[in-house]
C-alpha cells in the first residue's frame, strides 16, 4: 500500500445534486479519479466548481447522489455512521481552513485527539517525530488561544498525521494564513509525503499552494477539466486562466 502507484482513494462516475427539480444544483457531474498512495494532489477550481463537494465526498462527510468512493479498499456507500466515524478516526486526517482546534485542550492534546477518541495512546516515537517536525515542542502545553494562526495550523497538521492515516485531506489549509505561515504549512505537507510516505489531497484556489503538490486536478462546473503534473506558480496561474 505504501508503494507508489497503487490507488488509495478512487471515485467512479461521482454525481452530487443539491435540491430537487428546477432548483437542483449539479455540484458534481460524473467525476472519476484515482489517487495513488504517496502522492500529493491539489484540487483546484473557481468558486462553485465543486472542488469542496468532491473532497467532502472523498472524506465520507457527505454522500453522493450516485457513483462510488473507495477509500483504502473500502466502499463508503455501504458504511453506516458508526463505521464512517471509525474510518475518519483511524484512516483519515483532516486539516481545515479555520484550524478547528478544541479550545479547551492543549496543543499536545489537540494533536493526540484522534487516538484519544479511539481510546489508544499515540505511539510515543511518532508523536515526538511529529512534534519536532512541526516545531512546536515548546508550545505543547499552550491552548489554541495562546498560539498564532500559523502555529495552530501546524498543530492541525500534526493532528491529521498522528494516526498515520491512509490519506490526509486539507481544505484550503492556507486560506487564513499569511505567506510565511502558508509556506511553512505547505513545506510540512510536502514532508509528510516525501519523508513519511503519506497521501495528501488538498483543495485550494491558491496557485502558489498548488505548486507544492505533485499533481493538479482542476474542476469546473462539476467536471474534471485538467488532470496532470503540477508546475510552477506561473504555469498554474495560466492554467487557471485557461479553464476559467
Amino acid at each position, binding site marked *: 500500500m505504501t508503494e507508489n502507484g497503487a490507488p488509495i482513494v478512487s471515485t467512479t462516475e461521482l454525481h452530487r445534486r443539491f435540491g430537487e427539480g428546477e432548483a437542483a444544483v449539479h455540484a458534481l457531474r460524473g467525476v472519476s479519479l484515482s489517487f495513488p498512495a504517496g502522492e500529493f494532489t491539489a484540487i483546484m477550481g473557481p468558486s462553485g466548481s465543486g472542488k469542496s463537494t468532491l473532497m467532502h465526498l472523498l472524506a465520507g462527510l457527505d454522500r453522493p447522489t450516485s457513483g462510488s468512493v473507495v477509500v483504502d479498499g473500502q466502499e463508503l456507500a455501504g458504511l453506516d455512521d458508526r463505521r464512517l*466515524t471509525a474510518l475518519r478516526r483511524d484512516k483519515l486526517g483532516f486539516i*481545515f481552513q479555520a484550524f478547528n482546534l478544541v479550545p479547551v485542550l492543549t496543543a499536545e492534546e489537540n494533536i493526540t485527539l484522534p487516538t484519544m477518541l479511539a481510546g489508544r495512546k499515540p505511539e510515543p516515537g511518532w508523536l515526538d517525530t511529529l512534534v519536532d517536525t512541526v516545531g512546536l515542542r515548546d508550545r505543547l502545553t499552550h491552548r489554541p*488561544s495562546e498560539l498564532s494562526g500559523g502555529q495552530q495550523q501546524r498543530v492541525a497538521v500534526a493532528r491529521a498525521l498522528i494516526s498515520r492515516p491512509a490519506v490526509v485531506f486539507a481544505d484550503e489549509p492556507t486560506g487564513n494564513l499569511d505567506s510565511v505561515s502558508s509556506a511553512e504549512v505547505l513545506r510540512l505537507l510536502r514532508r509528510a509525503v516525501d519523508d513519511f510516505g503519506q497521501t495528501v489531497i488538498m483543495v485550494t484556489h491558491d496557485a502558489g499552494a498548488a505548486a507544492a503538490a505533485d499533481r493538479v486536478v482542476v474542476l469546473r462546473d462539476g467536471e474534471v477539466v485538467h488532470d496532470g503534473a503540477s508546475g510552477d506558480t506561473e504555469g498554474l496561474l495560466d492554467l487557471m486562466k485557461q479553464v476559467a
Partner: protein
Amino acid sequence: MLRLAVRGLFARKLRTLLTGFAVVIGVAFVTGTFVYTDTIDASFKDLFERVSKGVDVNVTGKNAVDADFGGRPQPLPAGTLDKVKATDGVAAAEGNLSANVSIFDKQGKRVGGQSGPSLLFSGGEERFDPLTYEEGGRATEPGTVTVDQKTAEDEDFKLGDSILIAGREPARRYKIVGITKLGDQKSLGLATLVMPLSEVQKIAQEPGKITEVVAAADRGTSAEQLKASISRSLGGTAVVRTGKEQAAHDAADISDSLGFIKIALLVFAGVAVLVGGFLIFNTFAVTVAQRSKEFALLRTLGASRRQVLTSVVVEALVIGLLASAAGILGGLLLAPALRSLMASFGLELPSTSTVVAPRTVLVGLAVGVIATLISGLMPARRATQVDPVEAMREADTPGVKRLSRKRLAIAFAVIALGVAALFVGLFGGASGSQAASLLGLGVVVMIFGVALLAPVLVRPLARVIGAPLERFQGLPGRLARENAERQPQRTAITASALMIGLALVVFTAIFASGLRASVNKVIDDQFGRSALIVTHDDGFSPVPTGVADQLKTVPGVTTVSAMRFDQANVRGGGKAVPASGVDPSTVTKVFEPKWESGSQATLANLRDDQVLADSGWAKSHDFKVGQTLRVTTPANKTLDYRLTGLYKNQAGALGNILVTNASMTRDWNQPDDALVLVAGTGDPKTLAREAKQSLSAFPVAKAQTLDQFKQDQADQVNQLLGLVFALLSLSVIVALLGIVNTLALAVFERTRELGMLRAVGMSRRQVRRMVRAEAVITALIGAVLGVVLGAVFAVIVSRPLADEGFVLSIPVGTLIGLGVLAAIAGVLAAIPPARRAAKVDVLRAVTTE
C-alpha cells in the same frame, strides 16, 4: 426595534420556550396558591352561610382566650336559652352543643387519619336544620345519627347500619338514619354527624350544657332588632350576633387559622420564582453574548444604545407577559393538585366552585413580568455595551473570563450581609413574624452571595467532580469537565439555580433529623421513668375521660399520671399562651423536666394557686420566681398564680406555663387529659398489650411504649418532610430546565467544534456522553453548593434552639442520596441537548462558507 425583538423570539423558539417555562412554573405556583386558598375561604364562607339558615340571631359563650380556630367554644350560662325564648320578637329558639368525636369504619379503624376529629352537632327543630337529606331523614331519637354523604360513600355506610362513635364517653354504636348534604357539598372536609341534643351532651359529658343558642325572629322583627333585644335581655353574659355576622365571624376565624397554609405555599412559590429568575438571567446573558454581532451590526447601522436596550427589554417583556398568562392558566390546574397534595398529607379542606379573584390574576402577571424584567435587565445592559466594531470580527466562542477581585469582595460582602440578617433575626429579639422575615431575607441574600461567588468555585469543584468521569469516560469526560469550566459564570448560575432548591431540601432534612433526635432525647431524659405514653389515636385530640382510671386497674401498673394542655392569657406575657396541667401527687414518678430553678419537690408540692413557667419565656417577659402571674383562663376566670419554679421547655413537651390539673378542671373548664403517662413493672411491651386490652371500651386510646411513641413522632416529622420535599420539587424541576437550557445554548454555540470533533472521529455516542457528563458535573456542583449552604443554614438556625434541647444531627444517608439523585437528574436533563449535539451535521459544521 419592537418588530425585531418579536421576530427574534420566534427565531429562537426553543430558548424562548424554556425561558418562558421557568416563568410559567413560578407564576402557576403563585396563582395556584391563591386560587386554592381563596377557594377554601369561599367554601367555608358558603358553608357557614348555609349553616346559619333560618337563624336570625346567634348567641355564643364569651371566648376569653383567642386561640386557633376561634378557641374552645365555652358553655353558655344556665338559663340563657330561657331568657332568649322569653325575649320579645323571638319566634323560636333552641340550644345547641357540638363535640369533637371519633368514628370508626366497619373494620374498626378510626376514620380521618390525622386530618382532625369528626364533628358532632346537635339537631333540633327543622326550621334551623341546614342539611338536606340524600337518604333517610333527621335523627330525632336517642341512639340515632345522620352521617354526611362523603363519609358514607368513603366508608360504605348505608341507611340502617350502625356506626361506632367515641367522645369523652366510652365508644358506643348508633344507628344511621340519614345521609346528609350541605347545599351541594358532600362534606365539610371532616366527617359530620348530627344527633339529638341530649345524646350529644351524653357523649361530650356535658349534661344540660349548650354552647350556642340560635333564634328566629317573629314576622315583622328584623335580625338586627332581635339582636338588640336579645342582647338587652342577656345583659352582656354572652356574645350576640346576627346569623350573618356569625357566619362571617366563623369563616374569618377559620380563614385566619388556615392563613399559615397560604403563607407557606407562597414561600415555596417564591422559591420557584427565584430559581426561575436565575434561569432567565442565564438565558438572556447567553443570548446577548451570542448576538453581540447582531447588536454590533445594529449599532453600526445607527441604532442607539437605548434602542438596543429597548429591543432586549421588549423581548423580556413579551416573554414575561406570555409566560405569566400561561402561568395563570397553569395555576388553575395546579390548585386542585395542591388540594390533593395537602389532602394526601391529611389536610382535607372543603372546596366549592373554584375562585379566581382579580387579585390572583394581577399578582400572577406582576410576579411573572417583574421577575422576567429584573432578570433580563442586567444582560440587556451588557448588550448596550457591545462595540460597533465587533460586527467586523470573526465570530469566536467567547474565551474564559477572569473574575475580578472586586467581584470576589462583593460576593463575600453579600454573604456576610446575609449571615448578619440571619443572626439579627435569630438573636435580635425581633417578634415572631419580624424574625421570620429577617431569616427569609438572610437566606435569600446568602443565596445571591453564594451565586456571586460560585464562578470562582466552579473550577475546583469541576476538577474534583470531573476526576472520576475523566477516569472512566476518557476524552469525552475530560472535554465535559473542560467545557463546564469554560464559562464559569454560566455554569455557576445554572448550578446555583439547582443549589437553591437543594439547599432548602437539605436544610429541611437536617432540621427534621434534628427534630427527631431532640424529641428522642427529651423522651429519654424527661419521660424516661414512664413505661407507656397513652394518647389519642389521631395524635392531638385529648383522650376520653375514663382512660386514666381504667389504666390504674391494669396489672403491673404502679403510677398513672395525666397531663393536660390548654391556652390562656397571661397579663404581661401575651395572649393564648400554651399551658400544661399536671397532677403533682403522681407526676414526679413518671416525668422530670429540666430544671432552671426548682426541683422535683417543687413539682410534687405544686398547689392549685401556684404556677411553674418556661425559663426562656419567663425571662423574655421578666417574670421571676416569687412573683404573681395574673392568668385569664378559657372559662373567662381571672386568677392569680404564684410562680414557684422555672423549667427549660424542650421540644415543646410542656407549655410556657404549668398549673395543676385540679385548677384546670375547676378554673379553666379543661377536664380533658391530653396524654396519660404510665409507670409499671415488667416489660413495657407486655404492659402496653395489657393496657390495650383493658382499654377496649376506648378504641381511640393508643397505649405506646416510649420506643413506639418515638417512632410515631418520627413518622409525623417525616410526613411533614415529605410535604416540604413535594413542594420544593417544582423549584428543582425549574432548575433542571435551566441545565437543559444552558446545555442547549452551549451546544448551539459549539456547533462548529462539535462538527470538527465528529470529523476527526468522535462517535455520536461519545458526543452524547460528553454532553451528559457536563450536565452531571453542573448538577453535582449545584448539589455540593446546595448541601453545604443547606447545612450552614441548619447550623445557624438551630443555634438558638440548642437551649430548647435541639440536637443537630446530619442525615448522611439522605445527603448522599440527594447527590445521587442530582446526578441522575443531570443525566435526564442532558437528554435533549445531547441528542441535539449528536445530530450536528458534520459538513455544515466544518465548512467555512
